[in-house]
């Protein structure tokens, strides 16, 4: 019983602490943009980049407007579908009116319905799963994407490889317990058959596998000139290292998940030389918008922005453009803002860092895919 007394005190204190957290929503003169992403854990590189870039865009807009036009809040969801509803609830408590949704797809799937039911306009910078914007027959009319959907990435990659005649015999190594990887792989193989690419080897691995030599050997044995890697950069870095050790040197072609490989601790960046990535953003591009963004980002955070950062920057500016055009004011209810934004997004054209975008009614973005090649440790537009 004595021990229980102590425990009782702790419980009561906890309950009081909970109560203290309950308060009325504060009024504000800014439009509140929320969003969640992995700020801790495995995918934190993406979440932090998105948070930083969105913050940068918000700061710029506020400076331009001369007032707090946007207020921005990012919550941590650790890319975990259990945590994203919690992050979402925290944002709703804060009074979120517009959202940049979630950074990762898995986390987004768990809140897609909530966003739709609560009528919050949501524009994800990098959640590429189609389940974020529609689910079977149900279209989440409030949800839009800045990045390509997974199936479109697979299709665009095959088209790009065929169009630029990078190779005729290709191998694919994908992660079979990851929906992202699997759906890009599926459409890639489908499109490859159409455009005349010969897929000579299809091998897979599982999360946390550490040895890919069997898959590489299979690709090499079948004479693949190009290895397509629809996977994230951590396993890709190991694949590149092992291919280098065994002396196999095909062209490696990755998608947006490959982005971030140059910033990986303990990875020899020279191994990534000559790797192609399908990405809408190259930090070394010389157009004014990119130069401005890269300089400002470097100044503020000390790193070169990845495409996730560029997508997030675009997301905030696209929301800004729609807010301006639709005369959105901070005192409007989230549902009203949502309707205005849907109208704007389905009709407007947004010229951004990642290309000129238009949006379909189902939330998919329409812009031209670009590829970059890693040259001397930086991304160079591949033409």
């Amino acid at each position, binding site marked *: *019983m004595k021990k229980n007394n102590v425990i009782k005190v*702790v419980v009561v204190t906890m309950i009081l602490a909970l109560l203290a957290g309950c308060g009325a929503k504060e009024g504000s003169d800014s439009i509140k943009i929320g969003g969640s992403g992995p700020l801790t854990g495995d995918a934190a590189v993406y979440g932090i980049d998105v948070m930083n870039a969105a913050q940068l865009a918000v700061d710029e807009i506020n400076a331009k407007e001369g007032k707090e036009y946007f207020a921005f809040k990012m919550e941590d969801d650790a890319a*975990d*579908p*259990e945590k994203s509803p919690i992050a979402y*609830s925290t944002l709703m408590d804060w009074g979120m009116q517009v959202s940049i949704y979630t950074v990762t797809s898995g986390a987004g799937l768990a809140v897609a319905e909530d966003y739709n039911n609560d009528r919050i306009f949501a524009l994800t910078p990098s959640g590429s799963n189609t389940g974020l914007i529609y689910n079977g027959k149900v279209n989440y009319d409030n949800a839009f994407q800045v990045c390509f959907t997974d199936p479109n990435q697979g299709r665009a990659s095959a088209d790009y490889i065929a169009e630029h005649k990078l190779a005729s015999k290709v191998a694919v190594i994908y992660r079979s*317990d990851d929906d992202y990887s699997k759906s890009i792989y599926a459409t890639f193989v489908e499109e490859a058959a159409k455009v005349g690419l010969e897929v000579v080897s299809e091998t897979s691995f599982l999360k946390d596998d550490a040895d890919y030599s069997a898959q590489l050997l299979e690709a090499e044995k079948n004479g693949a000139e190009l290895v397509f890697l629809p996977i994230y950069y951590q396993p890709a870095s190991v694949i590149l290292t092992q291919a280098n050790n065994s002396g196999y040197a095909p062209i490696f072609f990755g998608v947006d998940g490959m982005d971030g490989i140059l910033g990986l601790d303990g990875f020899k960046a020279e191994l990534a030389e000559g790797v192609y990535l399908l990405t809408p953003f190259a930090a070394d591009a010389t157009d004014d918008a990119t130069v401005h963004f890269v300089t400002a980002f470097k100044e503020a955070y000390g790193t070169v922005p990845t495409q996730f950062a560029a997508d997030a920057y675009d997301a905030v500016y696209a929301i800004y453009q729609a807010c301006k055009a639709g005369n959105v004011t901070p005192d409007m209810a989230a549902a009203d803002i949502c309707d205005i934004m849907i109208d704007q997004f389905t009709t407007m054209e947004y010229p951004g860092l990642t290309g000129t975008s238009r949006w379909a009614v189902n939330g998919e973005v329409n812009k031209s895919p670009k590829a970059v090649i890693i040259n001397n440790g930086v991304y160079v537009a591949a033409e």
Partner: protein
Amino acid sequence: MANIKDKIKNIYKKKNSGVMSYTIVIGLYLVMEILMKTGNLTNLIKSLLVPCVCYIIVAVALNLCVGLSGELSLGHAGFMSIGAFTSVVVSGTLEEVITNDILRLVIAVIAAALVASIIGYLVSIPVLKLEGDYLAIVTLAFGQIIKSIIGNIYLGIDEKGFQFSFIEDTTKISENGKMLISGPTGATGISRISTFTAAVVLCIIALIIVYHLINSKDGRAIMAARDNRIASLSVGINVTRTKTLAFVMSVMLAGAAGAIYGLNYSSISPAKFDFNQSILILVYVVLGGLGNINGTIIAATLLYILPEMLRSLADYRMLIYALILIVIMLVTNNDKLKNRINELLRRKKKHE
């Protein structure tokens, strides 16, 4: 008045009656319900309620296995996963047949508990005949296997019935049908029928089952087998049977909790129920105290809610959380400190 007070005191003093556990759970439930009804609860807390109670149930269930019968299980997340996906399939299939949400939830939970306990029983057959830490090894592997298996299942339903495929998605679901489980994505578009009340009811049922077991002949046999295998064999206790009983009860409750958990989200993925999840549940049990049900309930509640309450600390959140874990571990294992606290309490009592 004094008489009633004494009586209540006696109930609380009776060892292992479980009254304290019921009081904690019902107390928390009432506080939360009142706050919810009066509109004083933030969305954050509301979203934490159901998963928190689910973790309490799984932790209590695991304590039955680890604390009471002394067999370490490292795969309880796997059984939660079985429960969650079973319930999603059952609830998704019956959606049009049974429109009453509560009835469907009850059926789904019972189905989940059954499937989990059958699989748990199969796992336990070869292992619990042995002496040693084999259950830990087998359940560890089991958790991984289940994650892989469910991550490769494609199961859909349409007017023609079920369609199933493994590894490659070859199901062709018509316009009117829907996918129940789609490989690594897991289940999406789940209708969320779990409620806080349902979770608490299940929690109380779980407590009744656990306390009933502890106070029964079987419970005493389980503890005897834990404390001294040879001695209990010599007095005629069937050690394998008692250990199996504790383990199957434990995974049954884990499966039921998984059902409530799964039906609380619009999408769940098999990757969620990994080794880390099993360890997390084990942490609740160890910090709450092996064999101590009250402690487990409190530890699960605090440790689940804590990281979310620390959200305001932003970047330092997980750092502080880790520190708190270490401090709790040190404090609960420090005899000096314990004696000190007991002394203080004794002095207070003398004053009274």
